[in-house]
């Protein structure tokens, strides 16, 4: 393990993955601060130790889902992970997300994640045009509530990195695309609900989920893809039994 310099004052002992699939952890000492997120730690290393350290972020407030990494073995958003609030752990170990190809250092290629989103039929198909009036939708209807429960996904791929089925079955669509699909199945305006069920059933779809619940456990915005996927399982079951949707 290489050692890349030290700093004065109270310091954090940080190990960061450098390289791609092949690489090594490099150790850094980063000044500890009263308010410091994991993203700040990475930024400090880039600004003061490794000018070409690769990492990704954009919004810095938890809405864009760009900054996710593996922090001490767990997938997390880093812009809103306060170092002091991490379970006591020394050193602080940072790696790219699991289950995705690596570009360099802490950056993964998210294309496989979004390609699955598309494969799951994760796209609204209109049944009206901009010239039609807006539909009336009761906010407390069951279907609308099912949409609301899953719609605020920031596509950070934390769940994708957390789910072991994805590691075991590379063709699996994964929690976030299935979660999006479930919101569409419940969206009464959506023109391709049957198609979504077709696309999300099967060994690569909802039936591959074993309710490991790592997705729901680590989703930074508190969504529960486990519940959405269960919804898809039910819907496809009712369909198989000849009934309509759940």
């Amino acid at each position, binding site marked *: 393990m290489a050692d890349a310099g030290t700093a004065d004052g109270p310091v954090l002992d940080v190990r960061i993955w450098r390289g791609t699939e092949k690489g090594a952890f490099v150790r850094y000492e980063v000044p500890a*601060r*009263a*308010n*410091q*997120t994991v*993203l*700040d730690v990475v*930024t400090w290393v*880039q*600004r003061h130790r490794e*000018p*070409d350290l*690769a*990492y*990704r*972020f*954009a*919004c*810095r*407030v*938890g*809405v*864009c*889902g*760009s900054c996710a990494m593996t922090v001490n073995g767990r997938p997390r958003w880093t*812009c*809103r*992970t*306060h170092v002091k*609030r991490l379970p006591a752990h020394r050193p602080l170990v940072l790696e790219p997300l699991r289950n995705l190809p690596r570009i*360099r*250092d802490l*950056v993964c290629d*998210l294309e496989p994640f979004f390609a699955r989103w*598309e494969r799951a039929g*994760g*796209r*609204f198909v*209109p049944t*009206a*045009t*901009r*010239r*039609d009036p*807006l*539909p*009336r*939708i*009761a*906010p*407390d209807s069951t279907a609308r509530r099912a*949409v*609301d429960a899953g*719609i*605020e996904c*920031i*596509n950070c791929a934390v769940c994708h990195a957390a789910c072991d089925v994805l590691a075991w079955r590379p063709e699996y669509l994964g929690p976030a695309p299935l979660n999006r699909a479930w919101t*569409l199945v419940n*969206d009464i*305006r959506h023109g391709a609900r049957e198609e979504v069920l077709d696309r999300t059933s099967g060994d690569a779809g909802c039936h591959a989920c074993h309710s490991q619940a790592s997705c729901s456990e680590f989703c930074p915005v508190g969504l529960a893809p486990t519940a959405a996927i269960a919804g898809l399982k039910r819907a496809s079951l009712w369909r198989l039994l000849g009934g309509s949707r759940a």
Partner: protein
Amino acid sequence: MRVERLDTDMLVLGAGGAGLFAALHARRAAPEFEVTVVVKGLLGKCGCTRMVQGGYNVALAPGDSVERHFMDTIVGGKWLPRQDLAWRLVEGAVERVHELENELGCFFDRRPDGTLDFKAFAGQSFDRTVHKGDLTGIEIINRLMEQVRAAGVCRLEEHRAVALLPAADGSGIAGVLLIDMREGVYRLVRARAVLLATGGGPTMYRYHTPSGDKSCDGMAMALRAGLPLRDMEMVQFHPTGLLAGPETRMTGTVLEEGLRGAGGHLLNGAGERFMLAWDPAGERATRDVVARAIYAEMRAGRTSPMGGVFLEMAHLGPEEVARRFPGMVRRCADCGFDLAGGRVEVVPTAHYMMGGVEFEPDGRTAIPGLFAAGEDCGGVHGANRLGGNGVANSTVFGGIAGDSMAAFLEREGGALRDPDPAALEAAIARCERPFGRPAGDLGELRERLWRVMWEEVGIIRNATGLARAADELARLAADLRDLGLAGGGRRFNLTWHNWLDLDSLLTVSRVIARAALAREDSRGAHYREDFPDSGDPAASRFTRLRLVGEEISVETVPVEFSILRPGESLIEEEAGAPPAAEAT
């Protein structure tokens, strides 16, 4: 230097509300042409549209009207907006919101009876802001991203546009030079039409709200391509940015407006409320007034430990605060602050640039083949932007620009042009500059830029300060030119991109300072303590700035009151008396 070449029909720079809408419309209007989107980050995962919290202004509520929305926009913009643009905005918003809901699948919040919910945004005469909770931007961008991917648009993600290249024969735009950030190589993309939609972003101020990928690249590229920019002195500050201490990226991020609206108190370092001395509405006063008041407290040295003021909500009952503002409370808690029960340190924070590239209502610019939309553009908001008009602006004009580009190609579809080799060479040379030079301290330079913009070109300005700023910015520009990078290759080299960000920011900062010096009155977001009067609205002039060589030229141009003159109103029963709209 390796330059890879490729061609496309329509090239869209930026993937915010403006860029994505343009791509979608262009693709639908002219399916026979290829559309390529270039984005500095990942498609759908960067830019400010995604960060929109409050919502989207549209005159759809019963009793509201586009005329009313128009009046609020003009009066809020202190009679500086270009009126045909403002009209296009309010009219277009109605269509765009229907499109977002019915065709893209956005879900805006409903009232119990199933109709759209409109919430109040400070400074408007009607409740007209549609929203999805307080994460409206995520809903809009996620749905757009899905549609754009499905529409068969080519994507160049983590590609940075660095120069708009004119055609060798001077007939218009030929293409754009990009850096593939992952591979570290240059790409020259020739295109028949190009859209500039990189979305401004005042990140040259110490405290700022926008996404980290925003560094005014588009405006800098436009200036270098010879385009005029207008209203650049108009930089909007949001009064309550989080102050979280040094070297944390959380600092500057927005604590939402609603906290003050709900009755939150602002306290200075001594723990005293000070807003009532500035405005009878106290903390509920408009953004510019509150930002100025906070800044004045800070200048007087009555600050909180980290140099801002306190926002206190506890008197409303911590449970009540946690119930009404769960997102904000959780965000503060994540970084160690107790918003519901304690005091949180806040500071005004640079939020939005009203100014930008001059453009026509159909998206055209002065360069044939080059279109512009969104926050890169100036003229829609004048001296101040209404909360909720930002995302309306980018989505309305983005869509229009997409349609216009398609029409432009079908009409005059011409051949691909070759770029001027000298311009290409100069652009590459500018990007290559830091390589091979002795490494310097980029961080120190950034701190200096942040400081001078915040202190001299910020919330309260005066002639001497602006002159000092001009000097310091010139020094900074020279220092940046001499500053090299410490080792590292070109692949995913963030520090190289930080260097390029600073280059853009410096160019645009100089223009802001120059425009601020030229405007000798105080209006909307622009406040001159040496010229506190707002001047006669009927004699309103806007600033127009260009880069000529390395020099900035400025002129002030009379505003054309093409729809109505100050004092008039489009609203019958309030004839002559515009609604009490205040910009926020």
